[in-house]
């Protein structure tokens, strides 16, 4: 009976058989009366003396033994790493530790990394590189998938259909380009000027300049595609400035052929002063209507750490009129700064020029920044707003008093 039991048990535990054989089975581990059960719990119960079965430090041996050959190789070379190599090794370790570190780092990026003044700057830069790499990879993957799908589709169409006949030669892209260029050229003669003030290079970091140029490229393209484009002026544009170099990265040889006016002169030298209006979110004046006789100036600046009043100061210095978009008047503002990106400005101005419809124009303000459009008549809204304010202020006054009492009355 006992031996039969043993045998059965052995069969059941055959999965751990090699182990059991290694360490020797203990007879008295199993009480005779217990029936066979295949549940996991029983098994756990049985192996309650793990140290006998399981060598808990086995992993250390594995880790150490697997290395002997490698170690003997590495020992021969000097352990001390210098500068860039050390930084690269550190990055590799961080990557292993699961931090956000890019896979491939160029020499230039490594130097940038080492030049970062603080730990958090280093971390941020690495994260930026990591995300950039990730997006690039994803784009590449998507491109490949698309190409495959296209090839498949082509195969299918070539099987099923003969070439379709059409009265036009299919030359959409280049024809459109020509049409756009024609319009842009016309706007350069008859169009309303729109000035981008390019004098903010000193106020921005390298990355901010890069972002600015990207936004300008977007605005230029949407201007070109519009029905009635602006005549774009880049004023205060210095040759070989950071702006210039960034633009060349985007446009390459097309930079010389763009249908815009680029000048190192100030807008005050190009246009009469009384026609200029500087658009800035800090302006105390609110734009009522779009004036087709005026020349609007937009500051080409991305300010990530909100530098209030920089462009307003510029307009004040030159004694120009300023204006802000009537965002408060038409939108129930939610979150975010009131300064918009340059391409959003461009969309808004183009729409205003074509339709003079504020609601349509302000559709281009990002949706996350506002809750909705103001629908009620302004006077009625103002009443409720006043009511809300008095309620709020009433509450706030109490709060202020409470705080005051807390802070100052305990002498």
């Amino acid at each position, binding site marked *: 009976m006992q031996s039969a039991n043993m045998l059965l048990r052995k069969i059941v535990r055959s*999965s*751990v058989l090699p*182990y059991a054989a290694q360490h020797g089975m203990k007879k008295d581990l199993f009480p005779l009366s217990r029936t066979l059960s295949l549940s*996991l719990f029983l*098994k*756990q119960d049985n*192996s*309650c003396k*793990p*140290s006998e*079965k*399981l*060598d*808990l*430090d*086995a*992993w*250390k041996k*594995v*880790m*150490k033994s*697997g*290395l002997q050959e490698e*170690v003997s190789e*590495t020992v021969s070379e000097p*352990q001390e*790493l210098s500068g860039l190599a*050390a930084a690269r*090794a*550190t990055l590799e*370790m*961080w990557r*292993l*530790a*699961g*931090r956000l570190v890019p896979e491939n780092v160029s020499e230039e990026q490594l130097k940038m990394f080492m030049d970062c003044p603080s*730990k958090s700057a280093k971390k941020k830069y690495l994260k930026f590189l990591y995300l950039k790499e990730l997006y690039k990879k994803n784009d590449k993957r998507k491109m490949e998938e698309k190409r495959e799908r296209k090839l498949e589709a082509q195969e299918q169409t070539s099987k099923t259909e003969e070439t379709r006949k059409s009265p036009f030669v299919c030359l959409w892209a280049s024809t459109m380009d020509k049409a756009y260029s024609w319009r842009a050229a016309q706007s350069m003669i008859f169009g309303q000027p729109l000035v981008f003030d390019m004098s903010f290079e000193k*106020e921005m970091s390298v990355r901010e300049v890069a972002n600015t140029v990207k936004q300008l490229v977007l605005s230029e393209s949407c201007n070109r595609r519009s029905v009635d484009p602006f005549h774009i002026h880049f004023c205060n544009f210095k040759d070989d400035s950071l702006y210039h170099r960034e633009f060349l990265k985007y446009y390459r040889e097309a930079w010389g052929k763009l249908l815009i006016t680029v000048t190192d002169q100030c807008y005050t030298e190009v246009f009469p002063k009384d026609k200029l209006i500087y658009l800035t979110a800090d302006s*105390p004046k609110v734009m009522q209507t779009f004036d087709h006789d005026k020349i609007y100036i937009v500051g080409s600046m991305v300010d990530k750490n909100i530098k*209030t*009043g*920089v462009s*307003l*100061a*510029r307009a*004040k*210095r030159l004694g120009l009129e300023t204006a802000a978009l009537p965002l408060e008047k038409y939108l129930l503002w939610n979150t975010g700064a009131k300064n918009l990106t340059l391409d959003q400005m461009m969309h808004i101005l183009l729409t205003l020029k074509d339709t003079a419809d504020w609601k349509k124009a302000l559709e281009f303000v990002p949706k996350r920044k506002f809750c909705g459009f103001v629908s009620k008549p302004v006077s009625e809204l103002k009443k409720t707003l006043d009511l809300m304010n*008095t309620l709020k*202020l*009433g509450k*706030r*006054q109490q709060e202020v*008093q409470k705080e*005051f*009492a807390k*802070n*100052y009355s*305990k*002498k």
Partner: protein
Amino acid sequence: VQPPEKPLQPEEWDRLRENFQLPDIFEEAMLKRMIKCNSHIDVAKSLLTHVAKRNGDIAYNVLIKYLTLCVQQGQVSEIRDVYDIMKVRFKILEIGACNLLIKGLSNSDQWRMALTILEEAKKIMIPSRTSYESCIKAASRHQEMKLAFELYKEMLAKNVVPTLDVLQSFFDFSRGMKGAELQEELFGILLYLRENQLYPHKTFMRSIKLWFESIPGGNWRGHLTNIKDSGQCPVCNHQLEDSDLTEEEYNNLSERIKRDVIHGTDTFRKTSPQELEAFQTFMENRLPFDIVIDGLNVSHIKPRRMQCENLLDAINCLAKENVRLLVLGRKHMLSNSSHWKREIMNEMQNKADFFFAENISEDDPFLLYAALRSGKHCKFVTRDFLRDHKACLSDSVTRHLFRKWQRGHQIVLNPMFFCVFSQQPAFRYDCVVQTTGDTWHIPYKDVFEEKYSYEVPRKWLCIQQK
């Protein structure tokens, strides 16, 4: 996932892993849970054994997680083993691992190893302040005060800000120890608190008190007290330092306010050169003022009342014989609107001097300039904390000066009492750690975390030698 209670066989781990949604990160996720549940280390070991048997290697991130678990439970021999493995396995240690190892080893009798790892970490990067903290605490726990102070100084030299905890540990571990040098070092820490306008919390204060009282032959006695408004300590009758800045500090501060706050990168951002010049000539013609009032700020003090009435109340409350008032405002105040009645404005202009800035200019920089230009006796009135202007100052020394000056010269009007304004007087004494050699006065915070930087403690520790 719930980590198992007992070490598992490799087969059982395999089964668990198969049931896990993302088998690739199974080990890491499992170890993370173990860290959270503080599982027994044998369980983690059995998992590692399983991984090692399957892959013949253990990934670095898994190893780090295991190390975290060991550190959490203070398993010193395991930490050492992991360190040995890492040293052979990887060319270079990464700062996260260094921090963990230091933390783990510094609490054991192997604490000297933590120091060597700290040395290694320095080669890669500036070690974190918690690493320094662990090493300093370990050194002082073993009575190696000299070493601890060396590390502390190194930390300061590298611009790593020490935690209050470290500073407290110095006082805790030096209790009852003799030595003039040690005493000097600890006085140095108190002066560090003074220079950086830091206030110890209650338990830290107690450590300081106990240390002073434990100095052999020192005869120091500490008392907890509140300082009178006059600035006199009720225990030892000592008069605290007044809040006035020295001549040099004062000039330095006025210069910096003018340069950094008013001009900044572009004078047009806050005002315009014409306006600034007009203001300066205005000031020079009518100097000196005794109180400068931020008109618009004060006029909003009671929102239900007309703004000009608020301002009038404030002026009436502050105007006493021979007190010269200056009110700063903006031009729109003159426009005879619903909130700004012309008659009241005229009445006020008889009692005080007014300067009206452009509507788009900022008035606070003018307030600061006027108050500083009028001299040390001049106070200013606003509820604003002036944080944004403090932030314009570029270095911390000047910012501290600004805070000190602000504490001593800002009057806050209290609208609590219905009709009459009462004023919160500016502090007459300076609220910092201070000493005269045979006395120390140390302000301390009652609660551990004080929320606001503008609040200064009202409670003091008075220590005197008898």
